[in-house]
């Protein structure tokens, strides 16, 4: 389990010199335990003390960097099995594959699609993270040539070939960019591992369906001095998905609860394998690939390789990732109060919503994109959505009446008419009674609000 502030404090100088920017060593220790500051900020540590603290602070799952400079991404770094215990770190990297047999135009098109895939949600731009180049041709020169084309890409690379010769040729071209090597297997062990040592690149260990052997080979990689290892225990789909899940869960549990040194590495899953020898139609394949991705996002992949690029397949995967990796320690709420949109006067409409961050940002986005001019009252529902706070009792007549008083909205508009979310209809009477305002039940979804305002007013 994760280290406590006290464990850390014991190893700090305890002089409270405040050079780290914190008032005391204890305060610094607390921040470190929550990963909210950097150990380097304490300037008072000798090298060996620093080392001891680094070991103590090393996450249960090693953090592995792929790529370099502004292209670099981090995977792994987790401390807990369940997000409510702390938070998950480093959102699972989503990687899409390209292969070295594609025609130049098709190749370029696909890379562009990958780079341009994005989806905005609650004020955050969600994107993919890397490109996996697959040595489908089996030809070393083709692989290297394709790799060199990807040098220009804005994303870091995963180089997929089990042939050490092809890997060497590709590394000669892009080896200085810290790509993730995929991968070492039982059959190519020495040669492929040596390439990882030579080029100092992170390396994937691919041992399908055999954790015992995986442990052995991981151990052997570590003995070679390799530290940045990623584990692929095999993504089996269909009836075998249960085994895939078991293996993923076991690895993460061994890393986090047992601190088994051979398993303290990020896990790689390949939902793209759903498409292997599969003659279902394309739509079914994409739906199923998203399903496998969602399964492995939940339990416990740190990096996923997909093949589908349809936006409707990617959106749910991006959304689930965003949800899983929000920090449960941070309230999912915005400040309650009065928000203003567009040009306002004393006849402007007044809307009501809750302070659940997601609700608020959704409404905000809709009002802005619909160019609506309106006041928006945001009620403190301790960060709960409309339906949930309605059921939980935070959204009630008295609370809304208080909000009206606190915000002074009655001095800004002369109307006494409020539009509430469609889902809040059950409390419309209650709000009228407690506030003396007229209440109109608006649309259920805020996307309809701008139109509604134009029509109604």
């Amino acid at each position: 389990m994760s280290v406590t502030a006290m464990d850390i404090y014991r190893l700090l100088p305890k002089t409270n010199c405040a050079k780290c920017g914190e008032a005391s060593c204890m305060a610094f220790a607390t921040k470190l335990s929550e990963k909210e500051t950097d150990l380097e900020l304490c300037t008072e540590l000798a090298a060996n003390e620093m080392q001891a603290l680094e070991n103590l602070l090393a996450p249960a799952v090693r953090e592995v960097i792929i790529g370099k400079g502004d292209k670099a991404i981090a995977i792994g770094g987790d401390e807990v099995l369940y997000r409510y215990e702390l938070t998950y770190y480093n959102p699972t990297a989503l990687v899409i594959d390209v292969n070295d047999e594609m025609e130049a135009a098709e190749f370029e098109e696909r890379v562009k699609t990958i780079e341009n895939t994005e989806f905005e949600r609650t004020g955050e731009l969600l994107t993919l993270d890397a490109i996996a180049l697959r040595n489908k041709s089996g030809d070393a020169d083709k692989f290297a040539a394709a790799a060199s084309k990807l040098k220009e890409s804005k994303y870091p690379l995963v180089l997929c070939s089990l042939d050490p010769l092809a890997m060497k040729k590709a590394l000669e071209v892009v080896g200085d960019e810290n790509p993730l090597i995929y991968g070492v297997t039982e059959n190519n062990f020495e040669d492929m591992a040596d390439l990882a040592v030579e080029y100092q690149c992170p390396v994937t260990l691919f041992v399908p369906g055999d954790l015992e052997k995986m442990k052995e080979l991981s151990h052997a990689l570590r003995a070679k001095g390799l530290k940045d290892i990623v584990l692929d225990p095999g993504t089996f789909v269909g009836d075998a998905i249960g085994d895939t899940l078991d293996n993923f869960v076991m690895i993460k549990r061994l890393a986090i609860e047992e601190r088994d040194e051979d398993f303290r590495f990020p896990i790689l899953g390949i939902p793209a394998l759903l498409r292997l020898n599969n003659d279902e139609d394309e739509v079914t394949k994409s739906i199923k690939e998203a399903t496998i991705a969602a399964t492995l996002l939940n339990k416990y992949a740190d990096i996923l390789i997909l093949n589908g690029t349809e936006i409707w397949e990617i959106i749910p995967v991006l959304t689930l990732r965003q949800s899983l990796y929000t920090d449960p320690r941070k309230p999912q709420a915005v400040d309650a109060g009065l928000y203003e949109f567009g040009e306002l006067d004393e006849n402007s409409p007044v809307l009501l919503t809750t302070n659940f961050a997601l609700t608020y940002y959704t409404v905000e986005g809709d009002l802005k994109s619909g160019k609506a001019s309106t006041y928006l009252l945001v009620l403190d529902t301790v960060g709960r959505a409309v339906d949930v706070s309605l059921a939980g009792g935070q959204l009630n007549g008295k609370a809304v009446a208080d909000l009206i008083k606190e915000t002074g909205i009655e001095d800004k508009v002369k109307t006494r008419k409020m539009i509430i979310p469609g889902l809040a209809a059950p409390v419309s009477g209650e709000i009228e009674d407690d506030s003396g305002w007229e209440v109109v039940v608006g649309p259920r979804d805020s996307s309809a609000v701008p139109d509604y305002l134009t029509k109604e007013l």
Partner: protein
Amino acid sequence: MDKMTQLLKLLENTKSIEINEFRMDFDELELHLMPAIQQAVQKAVTTEKAIATEIMAMEEFKPPIQDYPGKVAEVQLGKGSRTPVYLGGQQALYRFEEPQPNPPVVTFDVFDIPMPGLPRPIREHFSDVMESPGEWAKKAVKEFGANMVTMHLIGTGPKVMDKTPREGAQAVEEVLQAVDVPLVIGASGDPVKDPLVLEAAAEAAQGERCLLASANLDLDYRKVAKAAVDNDHAVLSWSITDVNMQKTLNRYLLKEGLTHNDIVMDPTTCALGYGIEFSIDIMTRTRLAALKGDTDLQMPMSSGTTNAWGSREAWMKKEEWGPTDYRGPIWEIVTGLTMMLNGVDIFMMLHPTSVKLLREIGDTFVKDYMTTELPEISDWITQLEG
């Protein structure tokens, strides 16, 4: 032996010698023979490392199986003229520890009024039967393999059609006639009327062991519990993403004469992108608590997965998001699947594709680890099309 040879011998035999100490002891030698020594030291250190790693013996691989003092109760739904379905019964969190005795179950939503508001991808499948709950239920079972059917008595809502509890009960009777799978009976969500509706429905379905949805702290849960006890049904205990509220309600229901084998919990499913992480946390904590021995929470869990269809990503027309025909089902699957992976046992769902895919994964939960033939994937890099 000259000093140099002595030194090299020493280095050979004492591989663990610290370089610092060595430098102190052979100070003057170091000056004269620097390069040679450096080489020797290097070599010794390398061998030392190799040996150290060899000594760094690998512990044997042991699957990380845990012991759990607690157990989730098993709830039977369906009796009399129904083919029974069993929920829960887990004694472990994961399959590799111990496969769960019963696979996750899906119950299809059926309504007592035609639902013009249902999203198009669903209406498409059921529009021909929406006028008749019985036909609707039949289609769900026959064509889409439903394990169960949920009869939502939405029409009893005072603001909907204000049907009487008796009329609600008639719709239940119709569905009982039409299919032989167990039923979940839901009301309209009106805290005053729901207990009356459920009471009437429970009597109409006496001895068929339905799941009455739901009891919660906002309504007369006693009436619901009594209707269940008197007519041999189970009760859905619904709380709002709050483990303590769930515990309290469960305790109240147990006091009313229900047992652990008569209660299914609904800790609330927030849809993907709309707070699903809260549901993940609550489901996980609830199941872990149960296995650790908290008797207030040792019941199977239910998910109102249909909530997913309320998400705009599921239904809203928007060119740049692609067709809703695909987005909708995925939204429902991912919501349900996420709940399933965190311990939920029964799913209320709408779309046939979502149900099928969820079940495909859920059915593997009852099999033993590594008893399925694994597909051959070792050459995926060259074999994968596209």
